[in-house]
Every structure is written in C-alpha cells, then in structure tokens.
C-alpha cells in the first residue's frame, strides 16, 4: 500500500442524467508517471478533473464512489477542497497564465498561502522556474508580462506556477497538445525529471507520447476503464481486445 498514492473505488460521474464515468476503480502509484489514454469523449479528462475536484465547478454534476489520496477520501464532506488543490496541482491543455508579470504568476500561489516575505518569495520563484526548466530564459525579465512569452514558454510557466505551491501530485491535461514538437519534447523531458519528486498523471491523446513518457498507462473508453498496467505491457501485450484495437489504430 505504501507505493500507492491514489486509490479510486467505483467512481462514477453524472452530468445531470448522463453517466459520463462508470464505476472507475484503479490505483495510481507514487512517484511514477501514469498516462490516461483513450479516444475523444472517453472520459479521461473528466476523470482527471475529478482528482482535484475541478468538476465541482460545473453545475449539475454528481459524483459517487471514493477517491482516496493517501488513504483519505477527498470527496468526504469534511474535506476542504481548497486544501486539496494545494496538494494536487493541475496544468491545463491551453496554457492560462495570469495577465500579470512572470514573477507575479509564480508568486501567486505562495502569496495565496500567506507567504509575504520578499526573499522567501524570490527563492520560491527561482526554484520553481528552475524546476520547470525555464529560469535561464526568463531570469532577466521577471517583471515582464507573462503574456509576452511563446506558447511553449507559457506552458512551462504554468508548470512552474503549479510547482510553486509544492504539490504532491501534478495533473496534466494534454499539456503539449497545443505546442510545436520542440516545445513538446521539452515538456516531456520535464515530466521525466519531475517524477522523482512528484506523482504525475497525464492525459494524452497522443499514444506515442504516452509510450514515451509514462510508467503506467490506463485506457479509457466510453466512460469506462478498460485496462490499466505497466506501459510496456499495455503497448506490447494488451489484455483486452478493445485496448489492442485502439493501440493499433483500428479506431481513434
């Protein structure tokens, strides 16, 4: 059990009457990269957003089942969702930096948490930007607007911003899908480095990316979890026929 960071038990999600996730049960291992793959509309992004309770923001959504992080059900009534999101960070498909300076973007999280001392903030900003492999590119213009960065840089900025609040788990929803190949490979390298310290769950529609970057892969289809296992095994010897069909491109 010590190696399992998240345990999901029969998690279902309803948009009104429509059942979008059907009794999902799986385990996410600690300090590994787990990829969620599947065709469009299969529920992988919806499932990802359940982990940091971002689906709470959508009206008419009902969630049943359990999502245990380190043994605690984050959907328990007594849990403060704000604290969960400090431990479980998220990087979105389209980078969404605040219309503020680079420095202020990274300092946003720590400031929210009450850190006011400038030297502390400076340190966190630098550490986070270094971890996101973008420090050298922006260290001389921390006061410039984040909106002036390129797409790939903005995404790495968003990753740095997430790291600045010291989460345990980082959720990535197709983080490189809007980026060019060079930026994409930078992000993938980053994911590889980050897993030493963090547990990473990444949604991707790009199977090669999943094969390249992840240790474990989960295949979703029509709201159900079809198969989950070591990435190597999934891509060479999948157990379910549906998995095999998807991986070999029989349907997309």
């Amino acid at each position, binding site marked *: 059990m010590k190696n399992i960071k998240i345990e999901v038990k029969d998690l279902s999600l309803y948009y009104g009457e429509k059942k979008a996730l059907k009794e999902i049960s799986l385990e996410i291992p600690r300090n590994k990269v787990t990829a969620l793959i599947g065709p469009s509309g299969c529920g992988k992004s919806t499932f990802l957003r359940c982990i*940091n309770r*971002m689906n709470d*923001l959508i*009206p008419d959504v009902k969630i049943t089942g359990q999502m245990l992080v380190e043994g605690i059900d984050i959907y328990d009534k007594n849990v403060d969702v*704000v*604290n*969960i*999101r*400090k431990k479980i*960070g*998220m990087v*979105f498909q*389209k980078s*969404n*930096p*605040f*219309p503020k300076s680079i420095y202020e973007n990274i300092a*946003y*999280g720590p400031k*929210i*948490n009450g850190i006011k001392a400038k030297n502390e903030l400076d340190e966190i900003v630098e550490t986070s930007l270094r971890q996101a492999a973008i420090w050298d590119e922006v260290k001389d213009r921390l006061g410039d607007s984040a909106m002036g960065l390129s797409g790939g840089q903005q995404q790495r900025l*968003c990753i740095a*911003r*997430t790291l600045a*609040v010291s989460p345990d788990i980082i959720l990535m929803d197709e983080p490189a899908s809007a980026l060019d190949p060079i930026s994409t490979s930078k992000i993938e390298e980053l994911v590889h480095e980050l897993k030493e310290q963090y547990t990473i769950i990444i949604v991707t529609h790009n199977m090669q990316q999943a094969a390249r970057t992840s240790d474990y892969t989960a295949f979703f289809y029509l709201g159900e979890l079809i198969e989950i296992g070591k990435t190597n095994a999934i891509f060479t010897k999948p157990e379910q026929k549906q998995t095999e069909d998807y991986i070999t491109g029989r349907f997309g």
Partner: protein
Amino acid sequence: METTINETENQFFSNKKKGVDIKGKLVVGITQVAVLLIIAILFIILGIIIYEGREKFSWEFITSFPTDGMTKGGIFPALIGTFILVVVMSIAAVPFGTITAIYLTEYAKENSKIAAAVRFSVRTLAVVPSIIFGLFGLGFFIQFMGTGMDKAFNGGELHWGQPNILWASLTMSLLTLPVIIVSVEEALKTIPRELREASLALGATKWQTIKNVVFPGSISGIMTGTILAVSRGAGEVAPILFTGAAYYLATLPKSLSDQFMNLGYHIYIMSTQSSDVEKTMPIQFATTLVLLILTLSLNLVAVIIRSRIRRRAK
C-alpha cells in the same frame, strides 16, 4: 450540353448588362440619405449652439457668478454644483453597482431566482422615466428619510427633510446604477473562465480568485461605467427638479445639506422662467455648449475605454 462562350457570357453577365439593379440601388440610396440626414441634423444643432453661444463662451464665463438677475455673468456655481453632484453620485453608485455586477457574474447560480430578480430590476430601472426618480427622491429620501433624520437627531427641526445636494445625488445614483452594473458585468465577462480555473487549481478560494484575478480585470469596466454614469448624471434634470436644484444661489454649497445650482437646470430655468428670456439667449446657448462639451467628451472617453476592453476580449 455544352454552352457556347456567348451563352455563358450572357448568363454570367446578364444582370450587369441588362442595366441597373434597381431595388438594390434604391435601398443603398435610401440608407445613405438617412445617414446623411442624421449627420446633418446633428451638425445643424451643434452649429446653431456654437454660433449663438460663441460670444458668451469664454474662460470668464466658466469661472464667474451670474449677475444682474442672471442676464449677465457666468455659470460657475452651476458648474461646481454639477461637479459636486456627480462626485457624490459616483461615490454612492459605483461601489454598489460594482458589487452587484460581481455578484451577478461570479456568485449567482444559473437558475437562481434572486439573480433573476436582480437582473429584472436592473433592466426595469434602466427604462424608468427620469421624472419618476425625482418623485421617488422626493417621497423617499426627502420626506421619509430626511424628516425621519430630523425627528431623530434634530428634535424635529427642519434640516434634512428638504431638498439638498445629498438627496439629489442619491436620487441620481439610482438613475445611473444600471449603467454601471451593465458596464462592469460586460468587463467581467471578458475575463476567460480559464483564468479563474487556474487560480482555483492553485488552491485559492473563490473570494481570493475574485480579489486577485477577476476584480483587476473589471477595472476598465468600472471606469467605463463611471464615466457613462457621470455623463448621464451631469445632463439629467428631472431627477433633481424637486430634490435639490436651485434657481439662484449667491454662494457655493458648503455642505451636503445645502442646495445647489446645476447646468441642465440652469438652461431650463433661463429658457422658461428668467426675467428676460431674449436677453439671456446667448447665455442659454453658451451654457448648453458647455454642457454638451462636457457630456460628449466624457462619452468619447468611455467609448475609447470600452473598445479597448473589447479588443482585449479577442
């Protein structure tokens, strides 16, 4: 069946060759005439005002008091009165309107009955004739609140229970509230959902998100709304008719319980009730010119800010 070149030519060019597309040209023509007519009317009005008021329109006019039964002198007290009016009005309306807009955009649920009621009220307020605001101001602010305050604090002595600049400003703030709410809402809506999500995903509370991400983005909307409100408040007369505007005051208002002079009201008084309407004509025109310059330039500034907001939304 292949057609000959000639036949194809005839087919493709037939409309142009046959002559003018009468209906099309007629519609364009009528539209052009209408536009020119509107512009012409505007310029004629402006032209008359500028021409008739030009001899009186001067720096001295703006900075001196009226004299000789308002047949000579300037409009300084009216200008100051209008200024104080819009300032107090803004202090009352802007925070109130901003908070309402933030509530409607950020807190109200989709099918909330309260939000629907607020929206309905705002829309209705926006179309209520301004004289009704004046009557409301008289009945509620002056006769109810004012006399109530007098009974409570002054032992019944008449102080607040009569027209003054405070009640007039508050009345005007009700009139301009919808403008502010709509402008702020418009600006808030241009803030993409992704920014709020980014803030929440970092572990911020809703209030922290509003304070740090949403509110800074609404400032331009607040500015637009305020400028539009001020422009409206500077020009409207009906709400202040019985709530505080005065025909002639020898001194400037010193406290909120004083009455005040006002540009729009001044024009009304001079054109209908002055001792010698003919003689005061140039003054009337010049005052109108001042008021027009004021409101037009304020509106222009608001338009510019608003177009910047719209450009940001793209």
